[in-house]
Every structure is written in C-alpha cells, then in structure tokens.
C-alpha cells in the first residue's frame, strides 16, 4: 500500500562504504597494521559509560550456528541475540577481554548468518533483533571531550566500543536488507520511539557511526511508509533546534544527504508541508556558523527542490539574500557558489522576477575588498547560461552593476580583479553600447546626486535631533529615554 505518491530515491552520493564492504576480521581489529595503530593512538576515544561497573561479565559459550542441525538454528539464533544484548565497558581496556572477544566473534557470526541463511527470520526473531540492536546502539552520547568542539579544527572523539558497535550496525543493515525481511511484521518493533532514538544518535562525534546511521535511516525510510512523515518531522525539529537553539549537531550533513534522496522522490505538485520545510528550515540552515560542514549537501537539496518546482525560485533566492553573510567572506563565497548552481537551472521567467534584488547583491559582492568574494562573483560572467540571461535583461542589470564595476576598475587593490572587471565591462559594452555610453556619461552627475541626497538625509536627522533636544529640555521627565 502506498500512503502517498512520494518515493524514496537511492542516496545521491555513493553510499557509505558501510553497506558494501564486509567486516573481515582484520578490519575490525585495529591492531593489525602499524600505520593504523599509530593513527588511532593519536585520536581520543570516549564512550558513554555504564552504571553497573565492577562485576566481571560471564557469558556461556554457545555452539556455532553452522554446527547445529537446521531446525535448531532459529532457537540458537535467538539465544545468540540475547547474549549480544550484554554491553561491555570499553573505556576499561583490560576488563572482560575474553568475553569481549566472544561477543565480537558471535556478532561476526550473526552478520554472516543473516546474509546467507534462509528461513531463520521467524516472527519471534523480530523483537529480539530490535532489542539487541537497541541495547547496543541506543545510549546517551558522552559529553564532548573539548569544551568547544570545532568539527573543522578538532579531531573527532571516536567511539571506544566501536569493535562491537560496528558489527551491530552491520548486522542491522543486513537484517533490513535481507530478502526475508517483512516490514509488516517489523513495524511493530521499529516504531516512532525507535526512530527518535536513532535520530538522536546522528549527533555522534564518530564519523564512522554517522555513516552507518545514514544507511540505516535510509533503509528504514524506504521500507516503512508509515514512518516517513514522522521521520521528516523529527529531522525538521533537529534542524530547527540546531539553527535556533544550539548551533551544535554533528550529523547535519548526513541527514541532509538522506533528505536529498527523499526530496528527489517527492511527488508533484509539492505538498505545502514540503514547501514549508524548504523555506522555514532549509533556508535558515544557511545562517549557521558551521555551514561549510554541510553546505554541499544543503545546496544539493535546494537545487533538487527547484528542479521539482521552479516557482519556488523566488522565495529561495529572496531567502538567501535575506541571510547573506555580513562578515564571513568564506560563507559569502559559498553563497555565491550555491547561487550559481541555482542560476544554472533557473527558468528565464523566474529570473526576471528576482533579477533586481539579486544583482544588487552581486554588485556588492563584485566590489568586495575581499578578492575571493569579488572573483567568485565575477566568474558568473564566464557561465554561458548566466551570460545569456544577463544579455536578455541587460537594460535592467547594467544600470545596477555599472557604478560598482566602474569604480572597481579604478580602485580595486587586486590587479586580477581589475582585469576581470574590464572583461565584464567590455561584455556589457558589446551587449548594449547605447545604454553603456549613457551610463558612462552620467556616472559623475549620478554620484553627485547621491552625495546630495546623503547630505539631505544628514540634515534631516540633525533637525530631528535638535527637536528632540529642545523638547527633552522643555518637557523634562515626560519623554522616556
């Protein structure tokens, strides 16, 4: 049964290695190669810790699944799942070594078993699988090691229990992808609460874990139609909290990547809910300080939306202009890049609607003293499609751009920028020589007019202030300060 018309496309980028590589023994064991070991030692590790510490853990070894007759296998499979619910303290590297190794090999066995076996997935197995996965992966993430973890600068803190955790994720993905897997049974156990806890884990500092989570969530979104709206809403909440409350969430890029494939599958016409998501969530995501960490994924989502529904172009571009970076030049360069991606797919009718505010901003960027910003904006003139749009509308765009270009050609400190500006001016001259000559002729008088206006403004304010002063003196105590 299809609840609504949306489908869920495969993840845009090459899916995580998680889904494709098999966890061979030496991959899991971090001590096989010297180079690996060295790299690992430098990184800090942490893990959320457990209340029941101290007592050594004892698990009774069970026979291998392949060593028992087929009819007994499902029963043994359940027992092994139950054993794997036991969670070990990996911050203590010396405790329970034997049992840790036993659980690791059991998990390895389970991974192989769900991949190759048939007929193991009895109805009783579903709750046990979900229970085992929940016991292992759901935990309160530990506090970040450094007070102000900066994902761009600092090495991430890795999850200490990864040797087990990775196998649990691996197992879960294979379970979800197994041919025998039936969502109609699983939905009793993989429910809203499960998904909510899964989403919280995306804040993990460990990139390996987020990679697995991405695959898991994508599979769940694909297979459980009843959870789709809920998943989207919860991602909304995570993003809103990230933008307006904490500015901290490690998994934004991964969630956006999943959303990219979700948006790809949206049915037309777009629902109001989806448009709201674009305008009220995706656009404000541009304001976050750490934009560079997820900008590529974000821009991809935005362009996906516009390819679906070109009438969204105007609100999107107005949104970007509203949140245009004021002080951060790196972010400005990113905005310009995204804008070019949008312009690449823009329809000429949409372009006309936003050209004025858009080129006022571009004109400001072109005259930025930061040469990378100016350069990035001037590169638009190398884009054939954008050039054709500018040419069609040169009578509107040229007057907006002219003053800045003219001034930079005389004043900019960076010779490369000046050279680029000359090219642009030349292009404009060829496009519309009459208007170009007119603007050149009136450049001086236009500037004088502007100066005069500026002076008038100042005078107005001076008069107002005098008035305030006069009244402030005469009616002392009446005017609130």
């Amino acid at each position, binding site marked *: 049964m299809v609840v609504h018309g949306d489908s869920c496309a495969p993840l845009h980028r090459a899916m995580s290695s998680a889904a494709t590589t098999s966890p061979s023994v030496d991959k899991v064991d971090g001590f096989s190669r010297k180079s690996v070991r060295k790299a690992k030692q430098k990184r800090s590790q942490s893990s959320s810790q457990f209340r029941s510490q101290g007592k050594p853990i004892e698990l009774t070894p069970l026979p291998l699944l392949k060593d028992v007759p087929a009819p007994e296998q499902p029963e043994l499979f359940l027992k092994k799942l139950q054993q794997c619910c036991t969670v070990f303290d990996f911050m203590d590297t010396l405790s329970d070594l034997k049992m840790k190794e036993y659980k690791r090999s059991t998990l390895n066995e389970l991974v192989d078993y769900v991949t190759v076996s048939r007929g193991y997935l009895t109805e009783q197995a579903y709750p046990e699988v979900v229970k085992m996965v929940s016991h292992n992966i759901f935990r309160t993430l530990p*506090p970040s090691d450094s007070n102000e973890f900066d994902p761009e600068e600092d090495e991430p803190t890795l999850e200490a229990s990864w040797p087990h955790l990775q196998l649990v994720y691996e197992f879960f993905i294979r379970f979800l992808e197994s041919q025998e897997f039936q969502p109609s049974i699983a939905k009793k156990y993989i429910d809203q609460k499960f998904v909510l806890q899964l989403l919280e884990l995306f804040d993990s500092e460990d990139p390996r874990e987020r990679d697995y989570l991405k695959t898991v969530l994508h599979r769940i979104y694909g297979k459980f139609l009843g959870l789709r709206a809920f998943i989207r809403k919860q991602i909304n909440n995570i993003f809103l909290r990230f933008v307006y409350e904490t500015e901290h969430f490690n998994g934004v890029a991964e969630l956006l990547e999943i959303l990219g494939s979700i948006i790809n599958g949206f049915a037309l016409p777009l629902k109001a809910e989806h448009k709201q998501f674009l305008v009220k969530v995706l656009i404000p995501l541009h304001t976050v300080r750490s934009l560079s960490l997820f900008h590529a994924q974000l821009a991809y989502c935005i362009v996906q939306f516009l390819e679906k529904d070109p009438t969204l172009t105007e609100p999107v571009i107005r949104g970007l202009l509203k949140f245009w970076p004021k002080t951060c030049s790196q972010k400005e360069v990113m905005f310009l890049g995204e804008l070019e991606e949008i312009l690449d797919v823009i329809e000429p009718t949409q372009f006309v609607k936003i050209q004025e505010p858009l080129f006022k901003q571009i004109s400001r960027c072109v005259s930025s003293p930061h040469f990378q910003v100016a350069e990035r904006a001037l590169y638009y003139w190398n884009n054939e499609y954008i050039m054709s749009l500018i040419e069609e509308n040169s009578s509107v765009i040229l007057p907006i751009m002219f003053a800045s270009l003219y001034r930079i050609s005389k004043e900019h400190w960076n010779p490369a920028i000046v050279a680029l500006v000359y090219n642009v001016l030349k292009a404009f001259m060829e496009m519309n020589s009459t208007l170009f000559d007119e603007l050149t002729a009136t450049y001086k008088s236009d500037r004088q007019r502007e100066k005069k206006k500026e002076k008038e403004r100042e005078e107005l*304010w001076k008069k107002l202030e005098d*008035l305030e002063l006069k009244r402030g003196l005469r009616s002392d105590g009446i005017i609130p300060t």
Partner: protein
Amino acid sequence: VADCCNPVSKMAGADGDDSLYPIAVLIDELRNEDVQLRLNSIKKLSTIALALGVERTRTELLPFLTDTIYDEDEVLLALAEQLGNFTMLVGGPEYVHCLLPPLESLATVEETVVRDKAVESLRKISQEHSPVDLEVHFEPLVKRLASGDWFTSRTSACGLFSVCYPRVSSTVKAEIRQHFRTLCSDDTPMVRRAAASKLGEFAKVLELDYVKSDIISLFTALASDEQDSVRLLAVEACVSIATLLPQEDLETLVMPTLRQAAEDKSWRVRYMVADKFSELQKAVGPEITKNDLVPAFQNLLKDCEAEVRAAAANKVKEFCENLPEDNREQIIMTHILPCVKELVSDTNQHVKSALASVIMGLSTILGKDNTIEHLLPLFLAQLKDECPEVRLNIISNLDCVNEVIGIRQLSQSLLPAIVELAEDAKWRVRLAIIEYMPLLAGQLGVEFFDEKLNTLCMAWLIDHVYAIREAATCNLMKLVEKFGAEWAQNTIVPKVLGMANDPNYLHRMTTLFCINALSEACGQEITTKQMLPVVLKMSNDQVANVRFNVAKSLQKIGPVLDSNALQTEVKPVLEKLATDTDMDVKYFAQEAISVLALA
C-alpha cells in the same frame, strides 16, 4: 483629550513642526536600501515618534511598522526593543495596547533573539495595561500566539502567561491554565522546552491549589519527557515548585520526580541536578536533605561521567555549609568526606580543579582538629597535583585555611608548589600565580617572603613574556603597599635600579615601568633621591624606546617630586629630549613638559 494633557504633542503643534517632518520622509528612511541606515533609523524610532506626535504615531507610524515587518533580523531586534519603551510616545498607558500588533508579529519571527526581545517588551508593557485592557487586548494576543500554527508563536506565548495571570478574572485564569497545559504537551520539543523553562515562573503566580493540581502533573510529565533537553529544564522548575509547596507535600509531590532526575540515564539531566544542588537543598529543607539528598549527592560525586562529578564537586562546600547544624559534622565525616577523598585522585582534571576551588572552605565548617587530621593531607595532595590549575585553585583559597589552622602547617608544601608554578612553561599559569603573590605575602608574613619568595618576584621582571613583566611590576607595587616604603628601599629598589644597566633594552625599560608603579607608594624621598637620578641618566640611552619611556616616566613621577628637583633636574632633560632626532621621543617629551607645566 489625551493630546491636550500631553506637553509633547502640544509643543509639536505650537512649533508647527508636524508639517516639517511628513511621515513619508521618515518612512522613506525606514525603507532605505542600506541596512545600516535602516538600522540607524529604527534605533532612533523614538525621535521619529516624537516628531510625529502621539496621535500620528498611533495612526500612521505603528500601522506602517506592523505592515512592513519583513526585514533583516538585526533591524527587527532593534524594533522589538524600541517598542518596549514606547508607552509615553503613543500617549501613555491608556493607549499602550496600540503597541501590541507590531510586537505580536515580532513574537512570531523565527530568529530567537528577535522573538525573545519581543516577548521581553510585551512583558514590560503588560504591566502598563489596566486590568480591563489586559483582558480586552493583551490576553487575546497571548491566546492567539498560544494556538499559532508555527512553533515560534507558541514558544513566545510560554513567556507571557505569568505576567497576565495575576491580574485577570478567574474565568480568564482558567483559560490561561488550559493553554499552558496544552503547550506543555506540545508536539514540537522546542515548545515543550519553552514551556518547561517557564514552568517555575508560572507556578509562582498560581494559587496553591492549582500548583498542586495542575503544575505538579505538568512537572511530572515534563520531567519524564522523551527528550533529555526537556527533562533537564524540569529540574530547574523543581526548585521553584518545591519552594512553593508546604513541607508535608514535598515527599509525595516532588521527591519521586527529583529522585528520578538524579538517576536519569542522560548525563545532561544529572549534570543539571548537580548544578542546581544548593538551590534544591534549600528548597526541600533539612529533613529531606538528610534522608534523600545526601545519598543523591554521594552518587553524583561518584557519577560515571566526569562532567557530572565536576558539577557536583563544585557544590561540595555549599552543600556542607547548608546541612542542618545538629549533625552536620557527622554527615560530612561519614558520607561526604570519603567521596571527596576519592575525587582528589580523580582521573579527570576538571573534576580535581573544581574540587580544589572549594575544598579549602570545608576547614571552617569542620574546625581545627578535623582539618589537620582529615583535610590537610588532601590539600597537600592537591598542592602536588600534576595539573597546574588544581594547584592554583588551592593556593588562591589559602585564606580560608589560614583562619582555621594558620598557614604554617602548609608552608613546607606550599613553597615547592609556588616555585613550580612560577616556572611553569605556560605563561598564563605564571600570570595566575603572580596575581596571588600579594595575598600570599599577606598570609605568610614578611620574613618568610623575603627568605623564600622575593627572588621569584624579581625573576618575573625579566620574564620573556611582556604580560608577565607587566604583572610582576604591578605585583611589586602591591607588595610595597603591604610591607611599606622602608622595606621597599631595602629589598626591592636596589635590584630594580640595578636593571637600568642591563644590556637588554627590554630590561632597562622594565626599570622605568617599575619606577612608574612604585614612586607613589615609595614617597617623595626615595623617588627624588634614588629613582630620579637613574631615570635622568637613562635619557642618554641609545635606544629610542628607552628615551621616550624616560619622558613618560618623568611625566608620571613628576607630581611626586619636589618642585626644586622638577625645575633644576627634570626640566633640562625634558627640554633636551624635546629636540631628540626621534619623533616619538620628541612627542612624549613635549607632552611631559606641558603636563608638568614646565614650559
């Protein structure tokens, strides 16, 4: 009628200014393409309103502002703030409700700072509403916000319930309670967080019966929310709620939830409990503290997450101080001290340094004998800690111990700790220990200081980091203030003046900086007889930086000198420097001449 009573508008009429400032011009200003200019205009909104007079502000300016609220958040923030101070500009409390429409729109904006400011302004002007206006205008606005579609308006509503509740009729009160209840179980966690953070404030204005019937159930629900960011806010509310309830109700209404929070699976919630522990302790009273909070506190001090242990360690002193006096000592000795002992050798340095910042305070509570027997070994262990911050925290609180057992008990261990910190590779650590020197000198006395610490203080003067040399200079001044001019003359001044011949010009300049700092504390005699000759001699230094610092020093010590020395010795030297080849030297020499009035 209102206009006649208002001198502001009367004057606008009398001066005929209204026509001078047509609203169109002002609105043009508020619409200017340049954000900065728009921002400037908004910040002077009161000036605009003043020019317009109260009536036109109400009928023209406010509608314009309400309609055009799509702008940069920075502009909106300024607007939200301005409107909170606008009551007189619209004609006083009678018309204050005119400000509600623009503020209502601002309270629905996405950007948190804008919304918060709008709510702040709304709270402010709510007080200026008459009870009738509050019901007719303000309360409907709160209701609209509370049932808005997008989470932002509902979030804003949470902050407005408590300001109107006390002044409305009981029917409206019931409605407000209902709205608050709804928001506490809102679908979006953002709204639940806002509601949880206002729960305590709202409880305070409710009648006790409703606190028991309504608030407690909301509190319990929020404290077991699925999101830890909501649960931890309930802990804060717990303090206010517990304060409101009579003692006999606490056990059944509050304690189950508090116990649960102290053992929450999320460390953030446990951290919050630890962080609010002193407040909680006061709110629940001595009996519950003894039975419940003591074991809870022990658990927090032993928590598996360092973050939580550090927060709890910070509260050790306050918690012990506020224990009921009758068996305070017994509780501390048997329950708290064993945990504290473990924390001294914690694996995490933040935990140790949090403890070190309060542990000395325990000595006043436990008295001399217990301090010597039980605490002293801990202090000594922390003084030897590998982390400099721990040692510094101990040293910075020495005064507490001094009062109880005298500092001599510690001085043996103190000295190596101080010396090590004084030579720490991190200059910030060195800086921190310098700042405690005057305190230490006061506690240890002059003999101990001369014998052990004086060399250190002098060594800092030639540190390779300027900030250290500067702090060392300032330190000398404080020491002289403490020990007197005679001590300075015997111990410090000769060494400082000796540096005037150092081959390194930075050290020679340090002499000048020291003289600047010390002259006042040392007095006229020492300054004129011992310091001045050295300064004057340095006016021939080959490094220009030294020479212009001579000029600066002379300007500084001039007022301390007698007028004879000024005229006969200082004046010729400054005059010579004023003709120096270096322009900076000239500049400072001339400045000194004019300040000292020697021209």
